[in-house]
């Protein structure tokens, strides 16, 4: 098996690219950071990679809305290449701003067509405002290849626009029914102590959705930051809790690398 290669796609204002690269490397992959302008110049270089990651940050300042301009650029220049990439059995991971970009691009939760308008958005938190805190997440089904079914993960969030919202109850139900609500905000694992306080759902997302996958399970977008919990000392209670060998977030990267082995 050849080495797993990761393309970390960045744009002006992307800022979690280095720690995402570090997380992929810890998981045993090779990760390269590529500016969207370079990829637009040579879209065929996508073929050299198994996973595309769109990391967190404030792409183009999140001006107009979070991820809006980055998504517009992908739609204009790279949409067909990306669809081919996914159809070829490769993986896409969007973290925080990257999740917002994937939803706005129309790759999550479902592919857009001319007669299929967008049914989902990621918008302003309720209660409003940017928040950096930790939360619990549960992998809700077995559709998504990045996640271990049923596992509870701890991770930090840091966003002001992370509320997953569907255009109608029917759209929401369809996504949940299809198991696309890959990650939901949840209680601590096994009735353990809640170290991170209330509310469990920090942003008012419908059905407590923290992350969505597409129908194939190979495209995942999530608001929390797995790359910020790869070593134990990143946990806010590491000085008082029984130590873990590594951070919960790393499992997600490892599983993706394992997918190609």
């Amino acid at each position: 098996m050849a080495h797993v290669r990761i393309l970390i796609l960045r744009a002006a204002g992307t800022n979690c690219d280095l720690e995402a690269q570090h997380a992929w490397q810890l998981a045993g992959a090779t990760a390269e950071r590529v500016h969207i302008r370079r990829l637009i110049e040579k879209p065929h270089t996508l073929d050299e990679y198994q996973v595309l990651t769109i990391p967190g940050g404030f792409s183009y300042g999140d001006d107009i809305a979070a991820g809006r301009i980055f998504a517009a650029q992908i739609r204009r220049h790279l949409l067909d290449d990306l669809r081919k990439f996914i159809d070829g059995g490769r993986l896409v991971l969007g973290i925080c701003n990257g999740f917002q970009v994937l939803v706005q691009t129309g790759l999550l939760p479902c592919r857009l067509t001319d007669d299929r308008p967008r049914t989902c958005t990621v918008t302003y938190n309720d209660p409003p405002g940017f928040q950096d805190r930790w939360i619990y997440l549960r992998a809700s089904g077995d559709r998504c290849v990045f996640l271990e079914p049923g596992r509870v993960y701890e991770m930090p969030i840091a966003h002001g626009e992370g509320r997953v919202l569907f255009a109608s109850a029917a759209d929401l139900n369809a996504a949940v029914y299809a198991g696309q609500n890959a990650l939901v905000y949840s209680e601590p694992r096994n009735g353990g102590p809640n170290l991170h306080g209330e509310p469990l759902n920090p942003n008012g997302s419908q059905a407590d959705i923290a992350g969505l996958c597409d129908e194939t399970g190979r495209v995942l977008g999530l608001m929390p930051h797995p790359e910020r919990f790869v070593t134990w000392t990143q946990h806010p209670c590491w000085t008082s809790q029984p130590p873990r060998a590594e951070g919960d977030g790393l499992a997600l990267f490892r599983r993706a690398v394992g997918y190609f082995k």
Partner: protein
Amino acid sequence: MPVFRIEVTPLREPGIPADSPPTLQVLSEAGLAGLNQVVVTRLFFVEGAINREDVEAISEKLLRDPVAESASVHGVGDDLPEAGGGSVAVEVHLRPGVMDPVAESTLAELRQEGYAVEAVRTARRYLLSGRLRDDQVVVTVGRVLANDCIEEVVLGTAGVRPAPRPPEYAFRPRQIALQHLDDAALERLSRDAHLFLSLAELHAIQRYFSDLGREPTDLELETLAQTWSEHCVHKTLKSAVAYRGAALPRGDGRAAADETRRYDNLLQETIVRATAELMAANTGPECLSVFQDNAGVIGFDEQFGIAFKVETHNHPSAIEPYGGAATGIGGVIRDVIGCGLGAKPIASTDVFCVAPSDWPQDRLPKGVLHPWRVLRGVVDGVGDYGNRMGIPTVNGAVYFDPRYLGNPLVFCGSLGLIPRDKVQKAARCGDHIVVIGGRTGRDGIHGATFSSAELSDTHADEFSHAVQIGNALTEKRFLDAILQARDAEGGVLYTGLTDCGAGGLSSAIGEMGEHTGALVDLERVPLKYRGLRYDEIWISEAQERMVVAVPPENLPRFLNIMAAEEVDATVIGTFGTAATSPGVPPRLVVRYAGQVVGELDMQFLHHGWPRGERVAEWRPESPRGGGGVKCAALTSLPQALRRLEGELARPNVASKAWIIRRYDHEVQGGSVIKPLVGPGSGPSDAAVLRPRLDSSRGVAVGCGLAPHLSDVDPYWMAAAAIDEALRNVVCVGGDPRRTAILDNFCWGRTDDARQLGALVRACQACYDVAKAYGLPFISGKDSLNNEFALDEADLEPLVETLRIYGQRGDADGEHLGRHLPAIEGRLRARRRLAIPPTLLISALSLVDDVRQCVTPDLKQPGHCVLLVGVLRPTDFALERAADVHRAVAEAIRAGLVAACHDAADGGWLVALAEMAIAGKRGVMLQAEEPCDADPYGETCATYLVEVNDHQAAARLFERRGVQPRCVATVSNQDTLRCDTVSVGIAALGAAWHGR
């Protein structure tokens, strides 16, 4: 040219609150009665060779969220929707020339999409429903949702208007006739042109040009004013000072009679001297760069150093809190990017000193923003900018005192990781002068001189052009690009770089070219809009620009990297003037359209300012005694417990979680000790970061300040600030033997002998304590003239309000009450509100292995909690305090400490409660504990230490001459108990969290 207006409105179902706190709440709190609902609409004005169909498509594809928003498009002449039945509409538009980041990004994206768009503007529309009066709405929105100095509030609608067109500029060089001006005329010129030059300085300039046989140009005079401003050269701290008054402490605890002392250069002989002596003795961390660059640098590991700089942005934040704080953090980040050959920013800090948030709305002096508005604005400004930069904001403080009403203080710090071989820089003759980043506009003119002036109620009008809105995206872009050019294969592509701070190109190029000279062609500088005069281009502080010195052979590669990261870069001149006039000392030559508009000797520019001798005098005028509750008032610890919830809820103590959570403090992944820790989210003492993800080496960052002690003695105020900064980093596991500190002085007017006397005492304390503790200063900055000139009519209401705060029953109220007579006397005599002399000390400490770090949350029932140190807040023996700090650090290194917390500030009982809240653990206090360690008394060098081996810890402390006392035991209960009195940890948590 067609103009269209696009309104983007949140759909009523589902309703989305976009603002925090919600607009409805903000308006209601501001007294707008009868308000039921607010709908906030975003407006985009798009102008260009486009038609309605284009704009409909733009609206659908780019501006509107198809799930959450609706949009409508209007052209010129279209009927705009009326507010209708019982609603009032108000629009807020930016004034011409104010930075509009959303408009910039939208314009760039539309052009890439292929639309021939000329201009984009944005605005906000508020549709308010309820029983409202139009005039009331305009006034309230104007007061709390808009800022008159950058925005215009329009009742109804401003319609569909084209962007304003600035007039063309016709070049006309101007000279200022100085030679025949008498002193009165010189002073008038200095004031009217906002030069803020003293008479002695004006005389020096007069002489310089008289020797040359010509008059100065406006640009030359402006350049000198900016370069010689207090902000840029720190002339007060560098001046000779004759001090007389109360004797300075001599370290033996004995009070001497009056003394006189002379300093030839106050800064050199105190702060800089301490560092030099420590470095010579090989004490403290490895100092790689001190006081000479934009930031100080100490060694981190074998490959890297850590740069640290803290700046203030007080005056801009007083007038426009959001923009002022955002550009403050943006500026200090640029200082670190521009340190040496470029450091990579890894963390930010912020400290705010503001008046209480519950200040009566009807008691605000004219020209002052409400302190709650100021605090909310500065927090949002730091948050929005820091978050967008991808730099974690990890440490800070908020300090409340009514005397910050007219002059709130905003301190912004930045740390960076820098390769050891890139700490030094020097532009060389022949290098291109390249300006990168933002374009130059008229915003931010007179930044340096403005920040050196005293504020008054007319400043919002006179200096609105000095106030700016930042654009973090521009800065983030060139940060990414500069790091690539720094780490380019084959070596750095430039020889020097610096930030365009206050003073703009004039100070950046002036500084970089001091030893080479420089030749600049101003017409090449990229402008935001036409119509700027050459001198405006030269001195504008317009944000997000840097100047880089690029050797000709590297220019193509350098420009390629900039272009690849979408960064504007333009050659505007060359370093070195030898080619144009061989044999002449370095000069600064500035041209516009080929004609020389300024020519100054670098020597005169940087060293020609006359150093005065100033008189300083200080004597105590208030009764002695630190803050806190006097022990006499308490008969026992159980009784003291009854007061605990109130003390925890005191604004200076209570949780700052609402600020901390607003900042991304974990981006970059290096976070080890966060601002809130433990299962109960209690306060940590300092931040610890692991700047290299592949290493377990860390840095601890903390801060200290004790402005209230200035009322007792500024010497001990400074000593307490240093002590607190060191305590904080020691608490988490920082190494006191490898800790560096930074000073930020914020003072009143130092032409007042008493204020200058206070400064002398604080500087002397800096020397004494830095030496005793082994902490070199590596960088510093000062902000003087923090006084607010009051209107006659505002004096009595202010005095009455101060009295109300002085009567509050908590520790802050008691302190203010005790010193109020002296404060009131000065206020009446001078009719100016001066801040208490304030010194912020920031500390940077190395941590060998972050896995040994400690947090304050109580860990294990049965463990003993030791009270260590407990020195008086004033007149304490510095050597003894140093022993305490070293002993605690040693105990942590020895693995004996389960939890550690700074116990000096609000008294040890408050600190113990914080440890219990953080750990969600109960505590049993030793009831027989005598009250000599006043539980709410302020102290220095005091720690609470939860130890996992009581005997071993006690032995270690005693070996170091420090007598610890076991004051409590961690318990299994959910209470903090003493004898028969107990308080629930949940109740204490609720008081501290403000729930």
